[in-house]
């Protein structure tokens, strides 16, 4: 019986390990999961079997080193379905802030005592830049519900729902105070995809865009509104060039304001 269960793997690339906690923190759902699937590889939880064939591979982390690049090809080969989890795997992550920085080599020298041990690709890029991805779950970190819902759908043989509506929709359903209109906070909710359940506005603070762009992210208009609210070009660029800085249209809008700041 056991070997007929679908086989799962959870892989880590360049990342902080936080998204894998969606599984580790799942509590009772893990017992249910153990009846529906077999975990073959999941280093953080103790299963080491990185090249075994699996039905579904979850991938955390971006492609940031030459070794990542080799490994991701093998992981793709090993899995029928590949699901990226989190901002790093889906958008290149916070580490993509280095992309396009001219003095990158100097930085490595400044930061590390023995820079010769550091092997980084010039850019941190999402998994989809290198191999075919079947489903992308955004968020920094992803939520447990998001991952388990998607996994449940895959195990049940249905296409996972992966909403790209803006955080505002969820914010309004939850009845939170709009921090943008009532506190003039530079909330990124109108251009950020939902998934977090409007977590930041629930605590009275502005969304900082950790789930990446929503389906129709009109970043130019929101940035203009931030200008009216008195934000400097630098502050505006930082709103867009943060957790998912390498993703369009956040990238273009953010760099546009960054250049204004430079002149």
């Amino acid at each position, binding site marked *: 019986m056991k070997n007929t269960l679908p086989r799962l793997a959870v892989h880590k690339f360049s990342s902080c390990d936080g998204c894998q906690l969606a599984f580790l923190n799942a509590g009772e759902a893990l017992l249910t999961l153990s009846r529906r699937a077999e975990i073959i590889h999941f280093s953080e939880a103790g299963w080491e079997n990185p090249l075994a064939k699996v039905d579904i591979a979850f991938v955390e982390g971006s492609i940031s080193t030459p070794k990542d690049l080799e490994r991701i090809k093998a992981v793709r080969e090993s899995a029928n379905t590949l699901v990226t989890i989190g901002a790093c795997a889906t958008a290149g992550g916070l580490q993509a802030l280095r992309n396009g920085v001219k003095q990158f080599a100097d930085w490595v020298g400044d930061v590390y005592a023995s820079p010769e041990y550091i092997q980084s690709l010039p850019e941190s890029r999402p998994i989809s830049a290198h191999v075919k991805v079947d489903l992308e779950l955004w968020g920094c970190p992803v939520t447990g519900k998001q991952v388990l819902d998607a996994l449940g759908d895959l195990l049940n043989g249905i296409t996972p729902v992966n909403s790209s509506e*803006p955080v505002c929709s969820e914010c309004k359903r939850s*009845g939170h*105070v709009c921090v943008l*209109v*009532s506190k003039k906070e530079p909330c990124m909710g*109108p251009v950020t995809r939902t998934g977090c359940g409007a977590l930041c506005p629930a605590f009275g603070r502005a969304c900082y865009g950790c789930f990446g762009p929503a389906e*129709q992210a*009109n970043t130019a208009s929101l940035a203009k509104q931030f200008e009216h609210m008195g934000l400097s070009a630098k502050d505006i660029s930082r709103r867009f060039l943060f957790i998912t800085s390498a993703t369009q249209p956040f990238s273009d809008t953010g760099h546009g304001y960054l250049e204004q700041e430079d002149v």
Partner: protein
Amino acid sequence: MPIPHYLPHSSLQQLFEALTEDGYAIVGPQAKENRIDFGEIRNTAELPWGIGLIQDAGASQLVDGPKNRCFAWANGPQAMKPLLFAPREPLWQIRHGKNGYVVDAINPETRRLAVIGLRPCDLSALRIQDQHFLEGQYPDSHYGARREGLLVIAVNCTHPAATCFCASTGDGPGAKESFDIALTEDDNGFVVETGSPEGEQILARLALKEALSTQMETAADNLRNAASSQRRSLVSDNLRDVLMSRLDHPHWDEVAERCLACGNCTAVCPTCFCHAEIEEASLGGNHSLHSREWDSCFGERHGYIHGKQLRPEIKQRYRQWLTHKLATWHDQFGRSGCVGCGRCIACCPVGIDITEEAAALLK
């Protein structure tokens, strides 16, 4: 027409007690975290005494208001809508049974609500929502269950916001119908009218005096001033034909440059009723929960039919919103879908103003 009475502020608590005796849970406005929010209250002290509200395009701010008033503001982002049309609710669960699938209906838990503080625009919106959810061929049982036994205590508007334009749509600032009790506040209390036998029955127990003619004149004056103070307006005619003949107007592109497609306008609009249905299959594979949630014509799902997105761009989505609200609504409901509450203007992060957009399109 029953004779108006006068309810001094000092007797408002008696009204609350009468409602509680009759088994109503009281829902009313409170000043919370920089906005007016409707929630359950028991004591009149919880009302927003001394609170004012400044609203403008994309802006809403609580300020100090007249000390001896608790209704010296116009409206918050929501009032009646989420109480009857839940933002998200389960409808049924489907599970494996011995002989195939079993569907268990999930009925909402309901209580008899007495809602105090609904504005005349809210009452017009309530009529539209009733028409939509209850008067068609397939009445909505969840909405219906919440609607049943609802007692409406309306409060006429003496302090419209800069975003209000109910005078031009004919929906305010005074309520004409669809209430059990209607109040008009002055510095000492309220002129009270009743609009239903339930309302009369409750008021009869409060031993109120008839309103003096001076009190009634003050109330009428305040409402006249409220109407004439409104700076925004919407042409009240049926705009159906003229708007539908301008589907290629260049102004749609101009709005689309500003519009974020965030859907805030539709979420706060008291007449918007669109929803999406979602299915959450359990991880264990033995059951699945079917829910519905507020949806918006600005969202991706709304214009999607199998294999095709009918409204891929913001321009088409804004046009859908405005032409439904102000044009095709007439075909569906015999009136415009806008009751002049101004919520979509105050709650739009970039301050898009339906009255200005309509005016630009009509030019």
